[in-house]
């Protein structure tokens, strides 16, 4: 196949053009969405794919969506899409990550009956049914317990909506009005992407656009390989573990052997636990997203986010591995907690290979879900970032695969029967070191109505590790009325009960200076 290199004089212009479309999608989504999780916390991603299913651009919001969207488009392309079809999916076996992430994909019409490309919007919905309000259950052992499972289904056929399908979906979730609003915002964002991509097509033609896509992906790949080439020959191994799978408290061991050969990153997860009963398993696309994030963080910030960066990553995992989960495994926590642990594991392997990387950050998203009569509220909490050779670790931020914002206390209290008793920096929780690890967060919720709380948290037993002689960060703690709660649990609450989360500190870097 002959491939025309995109003129280096035009790369940045094109890169800017396609990134702009993805950005506009993100803006329409967050402005139009109803749920705090999408509008305030921005737990969502938007991307644009070409007609061949290659990711051309993604608006950067949430790293865990980074490498996972191509799988979703692949699933849709396997469902004989027609131009103007709008799909919705969440099945981890067909392009999804975990069930609350509803991914909408529009097959963009080229105006002549063909598909010009795909507009993709993935957003974390506050409830998609299942055994627990919020659809982030603790203790689930099969996928169907976690919510409504959607293989790629058509919300619109060639532009004609299917109200019955939408009704079916809304009948299976706890907060149908909010879902309807969020889906409308996703639809509007897809349309913005479709319009932008069609305009490029009209102006430049399909052949030129294909050439441009080749060029942009090749360029991102070159930038990634340039960095890897500088690390040529690096090898390292690392081990870590999750603190239980949500059903049992037993550790779930992870292991990786990393090597950089011929400008490519090889990751072998042999030695990692097989699939577990609980829901910390994750589909391979989430594992890939974590690997991509770690590589991305070693690259300069300005490298465009497209499928080219992923090309030099080669992953092998045993067939029954919990990092390449298959049906009917439960996966809700895999996307949020296993993905964090994989990034910790990969950073540790890079450190073992002699690459200068930060100490471990909090390594968890501290998922907390409240659910009562007619309402569910989900959020994740920041914590300490690991320190690095460059300086101390930032306090109270999301680390690794998440970067959602907090829910303002005043918005939260107006919308739900909850009161935030305390929201503070967890002083002194960062690890000691020449550069101190970042501090975690304290957040205490008092409930005003009977409801349930579900916690999916990590790093409650195994502290975030320091680097280059730096101390470990403090472990996280979960409390109910002052009494310790397990890392993953579900409890019925009565009015007046207070649930408090103290999130982990980041690891320190370097031996602390003597006073």
């Amino acid at each position, binding site marked *: 196949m002959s491939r025309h290199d995109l003129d*280096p*004089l035009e*790369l*940045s*212009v094109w890169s*800017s053009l396609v*990134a*702009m479309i993805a*950005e*506009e999608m993100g*803006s*329409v989504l*967050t*402005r*139009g*969405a*109803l749920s705090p999780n999408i*509008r305030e916390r921005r737990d969502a991603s938007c991307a644009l794919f070409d007609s061949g299913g290659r990711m051309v651009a993604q608006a*950067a919001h949430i790293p865990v969506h980074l490498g996972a969207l191509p799988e979703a488009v692949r699933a849709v392309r396997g469902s004989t899409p027609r131009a103007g079809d709008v799909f919705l999916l969440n099945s981890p076996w067909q392009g999804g990550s975990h069930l609350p992430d509803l991914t909408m994909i529009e097959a963009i019409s080229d105006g002549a009956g063909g598909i010009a490309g795909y507009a993709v919007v993935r957003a974390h919905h506050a409830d998609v049914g299942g055994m627990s309000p919020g659809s982030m259950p603790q203790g689930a052992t099969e996928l169907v317990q976690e919510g409504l499972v959607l293989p790629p289904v058509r919300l619109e056929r060639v532009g004609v909506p299917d109200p019955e399908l939408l009704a079916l979906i809304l009948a299976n979730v706890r907060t149908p009005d*909010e879902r*309807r*609003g969020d889906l*409308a*915002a996703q*639809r*509007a964002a897809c*349309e*913005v992407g479709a319009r932008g991509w069609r305009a490029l097509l009209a102006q430049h033609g399909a052949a030129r656009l294909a050439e441009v896509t080749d060029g942009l992906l090749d*360029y991102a790949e*070159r*930038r990634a390989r340039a960095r890897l080439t500088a690390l040529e020959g690096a090898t390292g191994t690392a081990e870590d573990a999750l603190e239980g799978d949500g059903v049992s408290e037993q550790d779930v061991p992870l292991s990786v052997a990393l090597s950089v050969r011929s400008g490519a990153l090889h990751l072998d997860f042999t030695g990692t636990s097989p699939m577990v009963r609980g829901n910390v398993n994750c589909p391979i696309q989430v594992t890939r997203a974590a690997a991509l*994030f770690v590589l991305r*963080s070693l*690259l300069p*910030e300005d*490298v465009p986010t497209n499928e080219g960066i992923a090309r030099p990553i080669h992953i092998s995992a045993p067939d029954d591995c919990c990092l390449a989960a298959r049906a009917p495994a439960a996966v809700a926590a895999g996307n949020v907690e296993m993905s964090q642990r994989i990034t910790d594991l990969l950073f540790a392997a890079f450190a073992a290979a002699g690459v200068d990387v*930060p100490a471990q950050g909090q390594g968890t998203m501290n998922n907390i879900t409240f659910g009562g009569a007619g309402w569910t509220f989900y959020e994740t909490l*920041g914590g300490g*970032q*690991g320190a*690095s050779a*460059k*300086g101390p670790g*930032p*306090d*109270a*931020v*999301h680390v690794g695969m998440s*970067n959602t914002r*907090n829910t*303002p*206390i005043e*918005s939260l209290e107006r*919308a739900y029967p909850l*009161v*935030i008793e305390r*929201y*503070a*920096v967890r002083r002194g929780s960062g690890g000691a070191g020449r550069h101190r690890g970042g501090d975690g967060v304290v957040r*205490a919720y008092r409930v005003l109505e009977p409801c349930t709380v579900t916690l999916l948290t990590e790093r409650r037993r195994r502290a975030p590790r320091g680097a280059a002689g730096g101390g470990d960060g403090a472990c996280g703690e979960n409390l109910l009325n002052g009494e310790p709660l397990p890392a993953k649990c579900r409890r019925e609450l009565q009015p007046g009960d207070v649930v408090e989360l103290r999130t982990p500190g980041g690891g320190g870097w370097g031996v602390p200076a003597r006073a």
Partner: protein
Amino acid sequence: MHARKVLSTPEDQGVGVVAALEALGSSLGPVTRLVHGTTVVTNLLLERTGARVVLCATAGATDLLELRRQDRASLYDLSVQHPAPLVAAADVIAVDERRGVRGVERALTDAQVELVMRAVLALRPEVVVISFLHAYADDAHERRLAQALREASPDLTVVVATAVLPEIREYERTATAVAEGYARPGVGRYLDRLGERLRRAGFPAPAVMTSGGGMRNAADAAQHAASLALSGPAGGVVGAAAVLRAAGIADALTIDIGGTSADAGLILAGEPLVEPGGSVAGVPIALPRVLVETVSAGGGSIAWVDEGGALRVGPRSAGARPGPVAFGRGGTEPTVTDAQVVLGRIGSGGWSGGVALDREAAHAAVARLAARLGATVERTAAAVVRAADAEMARALRRVSVDRGVDPRDCALVGFGGGGPLHACALADALAMRTVLVPPFAGVLSAVGLAIAPERREAAASLLVRTAALDSHAFRAACDALAARVSGHERRWQVRVRYEGQGHELEVAAAPGDSGREIADRFEQTHRTLYGFTLPRAVECVALRHVASDPGARAAFRRDPLGPPFDARGLVDRGGPAPGDVLRGPLAVTLPDATLWVAEGWTARALAIGGWRLDRDTP
């Protein structure tokens, strides 16, 4: 109209102001009104040279400034820190009080007020800021503590958060109030000194431009320091709006291109778009401001080749010093301006202060870049300009498309030193057919200052479902705000959303409107912007009132034009006559910038001065 540009005097900007007035000298008649734009607040925030502030906050929520919104400073560079808060952790005092959604949960006791006062005074701050949870709905606790502090220590500056921004979302409200406290003493001192200097030189007291594009008299401005933080770029958009109105055009995008950055703005129905939001040096300032999107692309942006082999432009800039290679001030790296020189779009003389251009040096610098890319010098130069254009076009799309405005329905106003050079290409990139280059394009922000209306604002929280809002209640809310500020022309804006949405849309309203009418207007706007409406309750969030007196009437006439020159031959053809028509490609030397009329465009000299350019019908 007369314009003078003088060097800024960073140690005290007031010195430069008086110098500029003296430079205008006898061409000025008696001065009756003096308006001033200043970056003094921006500088205080950037340089961290504001006042020592103590913050009194609800117990349990004292770390809001450190917690921010919990997202990290950079998605992939894990060591980047957010800028430190303007208040040190040790200077935050927990106040035992709490208001909830349903009313007061913990009352503020006399003993607590006493305790807090002693704690504040022991820290000997210059300013104290009071910000309590849910105070947007009930500010009684904030006001009570403020009064006690004012009585106990009359010299202390006391800032009540809900008086600065009476809106829901504790972080943004507190951060804005803290910025107000941080900047207020410095702004007060600066305006006092300036007023005194002007008085001695025989000039009236100045009015000061705000981020929202209005004017406040000096005394008022000193009490609203945070409202001046983003006034710099606002002036240009206000000036552009005035020129547009004079030219009979309603809707436009604006692009103000300087040496290191470009600012994109939006004008609808002759008025700059004003929105809440924005930040300076990592400090959110959630007050109304003229919408401006800034990108790091300007005339001084440096062109380079990255490790992926791609030509890149910016964000590094050669700035004013050393500046572009062509300026001969020691610059060695090729910039956007150098590329323009190579392409023959910038003539010698007449360029910003009459710098003589070193064409050979510019050519050599671009040639070095071209050699690395394996392309000709001309193609490379064109690509450098295109790359800068792409960044600016992105900013223009953001301000328009994000707000449901189709750029094709707008004119483009290009100003600043580089605006007239890039305007045609930007218009082409966005399929716009009309470009306006205002008179005094290089100093348009000063024009904006001169004609900006005197404008006062008042705002209040208005948390109510539209279904529960009758026209009497709404009239009462409007009247209450109107009583707080004076002015001839009065406008009211309601911020409205679907119950549960986090982002509000601003719709115009008038006293006596019913909730139903407001809801209809909201749904119309929502459909235009997002393409859908929802079967869901609509709620108001806040009410904003602007009272203004008309600014100076601008009477534009033609400014003296330099001789235009042919794009290729640079042949002097003598000055154009009014109504003269020039077809591109062609460069026109303006007094303080260069206008590039691209191929396919026709320029006409306007009676008001400046130029109107139209895309030829293909």
